[in-house]
């Protein structure tokens, strides 16, 4: 239990990402809610995850899946009440599960009272809480993020007859962080949730907080100053809570958000994710090695968060054109699968439902440096519906059983916020929690054992990594070390059996113990260590000197 009270808990965590709406509906209105989620906490506890990251659950017109907030300190009525949230939070904590919630700093909904006031007149005290202009040529050249829907970062407000700045959808005006009142207001929001007991915030769209003429308006020093300010307040008043950065940038740029250990506690490693998919398709470790070699060291109290899939498209921002074309051709040959600069598919369909590849990728996720994030439903291999528009195809109801509405809700199917996946391969009749609980060799059972194994060794969350360089480039091998814990990980990225010789002379005399079966392998010596691996097979060896 010492780890439970450790302020670095996020380094050992296995995070489960979910949207309240998608998980479990307790009141038969077709929409998931906090009461339903609370009822399913035992499932998550049993799965072995140690933290939940909740997607936005605030009041919102829901034109961007809740990232368009109209009230920062309340719960969307569809998901329940503040009391329901409090009950959920307490129940999660009682099970040793921490809760991370969304903090959308960069923008609000255009229906937020702040913006309604701001646009009401140019003299309104809230006017300066947003970024206004009389022309749409300020900050010229700044890239547009949602290229499929937006043509400018400026939108015309017919009420106050001015342009307002928005880096995302035009119904999401950016807040003006040059106004100190904005920061104070958002700190009040954070305090509200911290006082309720939340364990951390995932800060959305961090690079875009501040605008300056003649710059890309991303990752500016002023943005870092804001983060340092909030971190300082957090550490003073709420030690042990964490801040997680969403910054879809290169590692060297994200590194800046760790500061000297005085900005974010954790940040997503976006570029690694597509390269894991690329490596498996290419059957070559090069993409993974390349990006991790370019990943700088981070302060000891900081952590990378790594993931395979999430609620958004599989972003291809952090790859070059050749790599993006390759990813499209291999994983999104149907253009319906593509959105913005990414792929709107879930893990299992991207892997053609190949259990071996799904396991390999999850094995990589759990053994690479960083805190893994599992997207809801991926632990049972849920499918997607690319015809639902936007990214809703990866946000369908959780599939609990083979009954009506997949056990998600007792409402009429027509009333569900989204249709349940119903095709012959990924439909809820085939893919659901109940059936996988009953099957000894199901993906769910396997995921539980994988997570349990990971949770048993701090080396995965905190250890160093050293890549081995066997001549067989279809094999990715690395050694994780933390204190007395040493783990050798060997992954066959290819679809065929491989032989590999590993130079592990520095561990001469150690005994490899295969961690899933606890079987002993021959002692390491001076000679290259020969292993054979089946297609997509991987080994985790604990190296022990006995």
């Amino acid at each position, binding site marked *: 239990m010492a780890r439970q009270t450790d302020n670095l808990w996020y380094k050992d965590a296995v995070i489960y990402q979910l949207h309240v709406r998608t998980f479990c509906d307790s009141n038969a209105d077709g929409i998931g809610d906090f009461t339903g989620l609370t009822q399913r906490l035992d499932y998550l506890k049993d799965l072995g995850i140690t933290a939940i990251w909740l997607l936005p659950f605030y009041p919102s017109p829901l034109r961007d899946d809740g990232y368009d907030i109209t009230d920062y300190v309340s719960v969307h009525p569809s998901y329940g009440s503040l009391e329901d949230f409090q009950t959920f939070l307490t129940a999660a904590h009682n099970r040793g599960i921490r809760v991370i919630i969304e903090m959308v700093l960069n923008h609000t909904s255009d229906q937020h009272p702040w913006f309604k006031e701001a646009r009401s007149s140019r003299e309104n005290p809230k006017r300066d809480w947003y970024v206004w202009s009389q022309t749409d040529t300020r900050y010229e050249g700044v890239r547009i993020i949602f290229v499929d829907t937006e043509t400018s970062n400026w939108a015309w407000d017919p009420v106050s007859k001015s342009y307002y700045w928005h880096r995302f959808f035009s119904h999401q005006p950016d807040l003006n962080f040059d106004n100190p009142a904005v920061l104070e207001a958002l700190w009040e929001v954070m305090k509200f949730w911290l006082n309720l007991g939340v364990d951390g915030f995932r800060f959305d769209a961090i690079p875009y907080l501040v605008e300056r003429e003649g710059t890309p308006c991303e990752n500016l020093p002023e943005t870092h100053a804001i983060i340092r300010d909030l971190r300082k307040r957090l550490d003073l008043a709420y030690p042990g809570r964490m801040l997680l950065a969403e910054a879809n940038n290169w590692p060297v740029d994200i590194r800046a958000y760790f500061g000297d250990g005085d900005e974010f506690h954790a940040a997503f490693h976006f570029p690694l994710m597509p390269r894991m998919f*690329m490596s498996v398709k*290419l059957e070559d470790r090069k*993409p993974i090695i*390349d990006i991790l070699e370019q990943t700088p060291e981070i302060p000891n109290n900081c952590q990378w968060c790594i993931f395979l899939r999430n609620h958004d498209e599989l972003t291809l921002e952090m790859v070059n054109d050749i790599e993006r074309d*390759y990813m499209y051709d291999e994983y999104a040959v149907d253009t319906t699968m593509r959105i913005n600069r990414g792929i709107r598919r879930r893990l299992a369909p991207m892997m053609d439902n190949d259990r071996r590849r799904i396991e390999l990728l999850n094995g990589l996720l759990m053994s690479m440096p960083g805190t893994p994030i599992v997207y809801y439903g991926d632990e049972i291999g849920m499918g997607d519906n690319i015809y639902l528009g936007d990214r809703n195809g990866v946000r369908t109801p959780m599939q609990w059983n083979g009954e009506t509405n997949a056990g998600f809700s007792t409402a009429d199917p027509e009333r569900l916020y989204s249709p349940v996946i119903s095709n012959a391969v990924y439909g809820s009749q085939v893919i659901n929690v109940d059936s996988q609980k009953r099957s000894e060799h199901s993906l769910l059972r396997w995921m539980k054992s994988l997570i349990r194994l990971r949770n048993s060794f701090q080396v995965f969350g905190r250890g160093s990594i050293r890549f081995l360089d066997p*001549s*067989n480039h279809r094999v990715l091998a690395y050694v994780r070390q933390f204190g007395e814990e040493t783990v050798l990980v060997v992954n066959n990225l290819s679809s065929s059996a491989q032989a590999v010789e590993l130079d592990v002379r520095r561990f001469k005399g150690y005994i490899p113990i295969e961690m899933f079966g606890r079987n002993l392998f021959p002692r390491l010596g001076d000679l290259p260590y020969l292993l054979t691996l089946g297609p997509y097979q991987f080994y985790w060896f604990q190296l022990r000197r006995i």
Partner: protein
Amino acid sequence: MPPPFGDHVVGSFRILQFESEVSRALAEDTFLTDDLLRQLMGVGEVDLLVGIYSHSNTSTTSHTLRAIERSFQQHFTRQRAVIVNTCGGDKDEGNAAAAGLSNVAEKNVRLAESASLRTVHQVTGDFSAPPSAAMALRTILAAADLLRARACAVVSPATTNLTPDWIANLLRPICQENVDFVAPLYTRHKFQGLLARNLLYPMSRAIFGCRIRELYSDEWGFSGRLAAVCLSQDAWHEEPIWTRPEAWMAISALSSDFRYCQVFLGQKLQTTTGPGTDIVEVFRQTVGNLFWCLESHQSAWLDGERSEPGQTFGPDHELTSEASDLDRHRIFEMFRSGVTELEPILSSILDPETHAEIKSIVSLEESKFKFRSDLWVRTLYDFVASYHHAVINRDHLVQALVPLYRGVTFSFLVEHSDSSPAEMEAVSEGLCLEFERQKPYLREKWKAKVEVKS
């Protein structure tokens, strides 16, 4: 500086000193070393393979390796690729040349701009026997076969201006057009490559019916299918292919209905190492090789008729006009003295009528001398037939052709001292047609029963 007589054929290998050792090595059933096999295991299946013989060219090998790697990065970003560097007995040299490849290719390139999706593998193969081109090629073919490479190329470190585009041009027809053999075309100045222009190309074209201008080259491409076929053939112990196995490979392709094409690569610059300056040695390696190929592939050409143009990517040829510094008078004197000295041997090789004509032109004054194309073709066909019937030692027979070639060369230099490239090309085409016209003569002499003179 071009070699004497303008011959472009410059091999990468020195004259063999230990032929018996090479023969023994080539006859070995298991010729891949355990070390190379271990490296190949690490590579696995590939789409592309480029082989080089780095023996005796260590100084330029690193440039060649970088060009290959850049070609993979620029033109074949998705393909699985390997470089097979056969360094013939000195692996350390090959490794030294290859050192820094990754540094150059990867570390100086920011990830976002890097074009290479995959690892570019490089394996280095050595063999304990004295180096030979045949052993190197056999190693490359074996690697191609084991790795199931679809498209392969061989390039020479002796070529100092090799570019990534050359590699791409050699490999693309195989990847995209299903071609099995890709021969290069180069920009030549007009008196460069005269052996190819006056003998190798027109003769091989007439006999095999396929128009490959550069049958003897240091760069060529081939499919995995062709590699497998050549690897399985029982010709590796034959001396004529030890130094120039590429022509044997080309002729094997032409003889087995594999698809071929030519690709234009541009001007070729090369180091002057190798046997290129010794015309007799060049004859043994090329003409001797061609004669042997005619012998070993006779079933493929004996009944063939006229040649057909093949597919060519880029210009069919490109000549530049440059003054020649060749000593014509010396060439003529060597022709005259050589023919005189070899009189008894020529009489056993040549048809009496041909021999009589040769003797008549030897007596001409230098200013009136002309070696007619019909006589040259008939002379060559007499030599080929005599080679077939083994009227004398075959190696001696090939060497006996050298003085006559000098006569043709002298005649060509005089005739074309002021010709434009287009005029030269027209004359060459006429020579090719003469070879084709007289092919029945060769066929008749080939099939004739001949009494071997002692």
